[in-house]
């Protein structure tokens, strides 16, 4: 089976975000960038499936700036066979990103295309379904359990209060959710081997955007906590506030 993984370089979720002067992007200065955590489930799934099958090929495709080479190599270090960087000056909107990824993936003859259900930087959830649409493939989103039997995919999705089981045929696009697997740490030998694996760099130009980001603002600071009293005496007041003010009970 030939498996592609789409991977995005994103700011570390623990990084303190500062909005850039343009007001619509974040300032990358001093920010650590990591592989999108949801894409790491896709990487792990691809490697585990190839290892279990004992054959096939895994390819990671990333749309991003030159710096995304490092992100691709972290996937190669985990065990992906080769990488493709669709090199672009800045990230386009999801529709344009999906178009570029689909163009690359269309020629690869992939049986399975995996990626995170969303990127943690812009939380759009769009690229997976749009890539599938462009390639004319089925798409199952936010998959937490995946079974592939011959040409049939059976996937479980955790929806509000229930598990939904979905079936489709291959080739397909699967977007991965937490719970699908536990991504491995790259072994030190893997890190050293990664730089010897093929990494194709293909400059691309984004098409027209489907939308425009108008502004980006940080959430307001959390109001400070309030101490309503100490010990058992404080309980009635706490209950009253939870009921009347917070409306939590």
């Amino acid at each position: 089976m030939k498996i592609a993984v789409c991977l995005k370089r994103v700011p570390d979720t623990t990084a303190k975000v500062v909005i850039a002067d343009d007001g619509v992007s974040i300032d990358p200065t001093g920010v650590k960038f990591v592989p999108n955590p949801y894409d790491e489930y896709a990487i792990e799934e691809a490697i585990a499936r190839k290892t279990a099958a004992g054959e096939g090929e895994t390819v990671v495709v990333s749309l991003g700036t030159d710096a995304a080479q490092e992100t691709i190599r972290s996937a190669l270090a985990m065990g992906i066979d080769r990488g493709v960087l669709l090199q672009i000056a800045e990230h386009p909107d999801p529709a344009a990103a999906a178009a570029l990824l689909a163009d690359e993936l269309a020629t690869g003859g992939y049986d399975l295309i995996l990626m995170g259900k969303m990127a943690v930087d812009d939380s759009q959830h769009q690229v997976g379904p749009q890539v599938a649409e462009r390639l004319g493939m089925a798409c199952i989103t936010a998959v937490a359990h995946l079974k592939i039997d011959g040409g049939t995919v059976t996937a479980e999705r955790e929806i509000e209060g229930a598990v939904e089981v979905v079936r489709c045929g291959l080739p397909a696009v699967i977007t991965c959710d937490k719970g699908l697997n536990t991504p491995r740490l790259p072994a030190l030998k893997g890190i050293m081997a990664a730089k010897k694996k093929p990494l194709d760099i293909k400059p691309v130009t984004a098409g027209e955007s489907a939308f425009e980001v108008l502004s980006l603002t940080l959430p307001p600071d959390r109001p400070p906590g309030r101490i309503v009293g100490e010990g058992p005496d404080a309980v009635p007041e706490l209950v009253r506030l939870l009921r009347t003010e917070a409306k939590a009970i």
Partner: protein
Amino acid sequence: MSSPAANSRFTGVDFYEADRLLSEEERAIRDTVRTWVDDNLMPIIGDCYVEGRFPKELIGGMGELGFFGANLPEAYGCAGLNNVAYGLIMQELERGDSGVRSFASVQGALVMYPIFAFGAEEQKQYWLPRLASGEEIGCFGLTEPDFGSNPAGLVTTARKGDGGWVLNGTKMWITNGSQATVAIVWAKVGEVDDPASIRGFIVPTNTPGFTAKDQKGKLSLRASDTSELHLQDVHLPVDALLPESSGIKSPLMCLTQARYGIAWGAIGAAMACYDEALRYAVNRVMFDRPIGQTQIQQVRLADMLTEITKAQLLTLQLGRLKDDHLLTPQQVSLAKRNNVNMATECAREARRLLGANGILAEYHSMRHMANLESVYTYEGTHDMHSLILGEKITGLSAF
């Protein structure tokens, strides 16, 4: 410098952007070990320490990721890293605990390195992959009850007999001793007053006559086994000898390797203490403001950050020298002496900043503080390294 993130993951200390001096692979290796320590060691280390238990369950995982003897060649099942990457592994392990770093130091620098440097090809082929994976666990027997800073005086003997070797003697303060499956034992094949007759032997610990028992009552390195080894008429085949080992210089070469790793490790312990102190200082409110807003705690934090930053740059250069084969043992002495002393001071100041909470195992600084007293003392005491430097500076030996 940004304030500490709300979550508990360790993000390092890098005031002078020393990360820019590391290669992408070096950073990736450091981050792998850092994540591994956060996920596997930090949740259990406090309990291990209090219980006086080495976390054996972590050995397999460390071996699988390639933490043991990582600067030795891939041909022997090792990761084939440069010495800076090796040092970063030690730094991150000791950010967790000096005892766990000691385990890896002994396995890599004191057991795998002598087999690699002084062993026959068959010995390397047999032992190194098994030690790299953690299938075999090693210890290093040099120090004796009456010969610590003066190892050349050791009185363990190896005599020819029975078509092989017969070893007799006692070794003390041996990290991993009781759990080791193989010991590198240093013994004299000639007269006991002849340090040139010191040779290394590979001793499987199940050989009759070999016994190890843990030294009890340690108030430091409690998550590490420290043992006494007894060798009573231990019969070994002729090929137990490390053929290229020759005189006191051979074990001292091993110690240079281990001390190099310790210089890096101490930075990890210091960073852990600084990180903990900083998080505490900005969150702990006293007199209606964070204690981090008081001058006395700011001085503490500024001193720690200054010393850590100096040690980082010093040690990185040491690593580059080692990779360029320009390293001298005296340069390693300077780094071991400086960094361990620096880390011990950081740990002590961090513990004090933490107030009463600082004496709990839930926090890490006091554990590091107690551990570092051992690190200060082993692998050449702080004082011995002063004398080694003194001899190098003046050309006059004071020991």
